[in-house]
């Protein structure tokens, strides 16, 4: 079982308290009704699914219930870092070589 650090609770908690909520930093278009088919496809269906570092959303659903962002390595399952919802994608990852 993974340990995940909730950036709101500011502590590591067991994976059971969390729920994954898909890839992060995909903003809903402000005028979504006017989006083209292609743009809507990119927004709603297309995900990067990388082998390696992924930016994704998690929710501390059985804790503070907040959504936050996490950087995880999909190969090792290791969490590189977590940060609050709304914060920008970190420019530099701690200890990352990739």
């Amino acid at each position: 079982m993974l340990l995940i650090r909730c950036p709101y609770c500011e502590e590591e908690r067991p994976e059971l308290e969390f729920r994954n909520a898909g890839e992060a930093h995909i903003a809903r278009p402000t005028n979504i009704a006017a989006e083209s088919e292609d743009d809507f496809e990119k927004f709603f269906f297309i995900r990067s699914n990388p082998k390696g570092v992924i930016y994704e959303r998690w929710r501390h659903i059985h804790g503070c219930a907040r959504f936050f962002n996490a950087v995880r390595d999909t190969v090792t399952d290791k969490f590189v870092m977590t940060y609050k919802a709304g914060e920008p994608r970190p420019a530099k990852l701690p200890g990352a070589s990739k």
Partner: protein
Amino acid sequence: MNASFRISGAGRLSQAKTASFSFDGKSYLGIEGDTLASALLANGVHLVGRSFKYHRPRGFLSAGAEEPNALVQIVRDDARKTPNVRATVQELYDGLTANSQNRWPSLAFDVGAVNDIASPMFSAGFYYKTFMWPKSAWLNFYEPKIRATAGLGVSPDRPDPDHYAARYAHCDVLVLGGGAAGIAAALAAAETGVRVILADEQAEFGGSLRFESGARIDGEDGFAWAQAAIAKLKAMDNVRVLSRTTAFGYYAQNFVGLVERVSDHLKSPGRELARERLWQVRAKRVVLATGAIERHMVFANNDRPGVMLASAARTYLNHYGVAVGRNVGVYTANDSAYAAAIDLRKAGVNVAAIVDLRDNPSGAVIDEARSLGIEINFGRAVVSAGGKLRVSSMTVQPKNGGGERRIAVDAILMSAGWTPSVHLFSQSRGKVAFNEEARRFVPGTYAQDCVSVGACNGTDGLEATVDEAYAAGAQAARDAGGKDSSGKMGKGAKPKVDASESWSRGMLGAAPGAGPGTTVKAFVDFQNDVTAKDIRQAVHEGMHSIEHVKRFTTNGMATDQGKTSNMHGLAIAAETLGKPIPQVGLTTFRAPYTPVTFGSIVGHARGALFDPTRRTATHGWAAAQGAVFEDVGQWKRAWYFPKAGEDMHAAVNRECVTVRKAAGLFDASTLGKIEVVGPDAAKFMELLYTNPWEKLEPGRCRYGIMLREDGFIYDDGVVGRLAPDRFHVTTTTGGAPRVMHHMEDYLQTEFPHLNVWLTSITEQWAVIAVQGPSARKIIEPLVEGIDMSDEALPHMSVREGKICGVPTRLFRMSFTGERGFEVNVPADYGEAVWEALWTEGQKHGATAYGTETMHVLRAEKGYIIVGQDTDGTVTPNDAGLDWAVGKKKTDFVGIRGMMRADLVANGRKQLVGLKTKDPKVVLEEGAQIVEDPKQAIPMKMIGHVTSSYWSENCGRSIALALVAGGRDRMGQTLYVPMPNGTIEVEVTGMVFVDEKGERLNG
């Protein structure tokens, strides 16, 4: 029975404490502290099982967890018949009953042994070849035959009556393995004051000190030192010592699963004791001290009972006081088997000869064997073992060929060298590295915060092991935040090794006589009956990766996971391929290290404790009325309320008719309820639902549809606006948690600028639906402060007031098509208000009704159930709910998805009603619909039935269905092909009762 192989003065067990046991119906005597294996050996019993594929007689290979052969069934009672127990691990208790497995009719005469003679049929890859053709034969012939003859024991046929405990634990340093290395590491870590857990799979700590008679530490015999050290550790508050505890899985972030065998070794474990306890440990640092496992020699008939690992023979002698034979032979490629010969010789056992593959080894241990008068043959090989049910001889030949000599023996002790136990290290995702010089894989690159010490790290010799382990234990404690052992707690000293045994390297792969070109049965993997020839054949047939060789031959795939066989198999494959071992690669080790019971994983989560049960406030009342309940998610819901003599059909018919004629009471408490509150509540509702909300007046309700962003229906429910800034939202019963999650997601991440709070109130409010023409008359006398006239409280409105003196949110709404109300009261008052309403209802001929009647009544009105009539690919338009989408809205979740080309195309499946041509026929939900029943199979399916019931009110069956272009097919005849014939149906509208909706106000 006379325990004639017990050597007086040898071993550590007290001869006074005897225990009787039976094996295959025969009674024997053992001693407390024995394993089943040592007790059987003390009685001269070597034959304990038949092999999996060839049914060859098998005995004990080892004295530990790596045992591939001696699998038995332990029987306590009818419900406790544990198969595949390793006799070398099972501790003896008085009255133990064990049976051999995989033999018929008896162990000594097994019909299945014909497989041994027919073995060419069963060579490598036989699973993939022999049973492939004809296809039908697999089901009818091969599989049943294989299952009958190749069983690994028999499962108990009753529920497991034992209980299993579980613990979570956190520690600074977790030490896995309680031999010299693990104990030294634990001592060093514990002395710093950090929290330490030390676990070992054996009943007693000491690891190889159990048999290494030459080890002395701190002036004591090695095993005695280990016991003293464990006593010291147990006395420390910061240390937990777990014996009989196997670390079976090493997971991410130093999360380690351990199983503690709590009571399998006891004669009569009381109910207060769990059978096993699962420990889920999170450790800051892990010290792996898992030791090494001795390898066997690969030669012809090396599986005969009596042929075993040298270290096993030493363990049986030095720990259990049992000689494994009276006239033993030794076959080795390294030094450690000499110690076995010496120990046995000193105990009075004749050692017929030592056969050593090496040409001219030298050393103290060899000199000592020679001085004891033991015959030693260098540069020779044992090319075959004689005997069948028990080894009777060994045939010796110069290793490069030449004259054979047959030596009579009753046991052969073998050692090809030692394989570091890197299983847990490998599970931690560490990468092993091949040490060319020592020809073994050792931990290379670490993936987690752990360290390997001693034999599992390829460290040779007791002194080096203790030094390394002690330093690593101290370092792990420091890394975990402990103080240095020279600090406050530091009063320990590194254990001093006074004497240890000599150590040398061994060999990998097939021994001479079983090499390339030979076809002898020289076993590599005993449990899966894989021979050296099989491995070569796999390579010849094109398996060039060790992962392929493994799967083709099944080498290392049995329950012992190749603890003794992997390295031999790899070496033979590498030799056949002409490649160096590291290029062929080692297979990945996976959890569990040794088999784990389902019980220990499941723990208490079984039966009623498997999943929480949710009951509504009226559950007790409904149960007392004789209601039949159904599970809806975790909820228990009253399904129907049968009166005396009624079956389900009769009860539901009566309930349905009574609701429309008089009234009915229904517990709707399980509906999800969310309060949406705040200055921006209406704006939020506008974004989350398709409907317009800004203009909904406080006190009014609206049926809302929630979409996902892709435009498909996600949930629905009636929403009441209690105040400009307060909405009482209802959701489907099953959808409540995900709707809340969905709302929170948008509120927190997409619309965080909205000032809104969401609160789940599902369990705060009990909901009593009162439906039917008499509904108002039933409620009115109990209500205070609410004008219930049609003018003041029209359909789809909500008022706050009091009922029976307690607060209520009274909704005028209907899921039946009748005049209806849903009385919300705080859940604690739910039962009392229900009973008051019931008393009033009785005056008007009301019935209580359950979920089945609720379903029929709503289907009669064409009201959909999300998740039954929709399946995640249905748009509001498909469901005929276009009217609920705000046409002037510029944004809501799903607005763009709903406009996708495919979602507005013609020919989509649409919800319609179906009437069977024969009104008595009730369609099956899920049944497929076709246009032309005479077309060829596979027919083109144009839709399916989503809801179908007998409607007593309509006097016929009714159904809802999703049908391609359904609304353009009104009046068309379609067909529902079923196994017993095709059913004709007519496409109709979705409303079967009161099409104009007059009864809502009637």
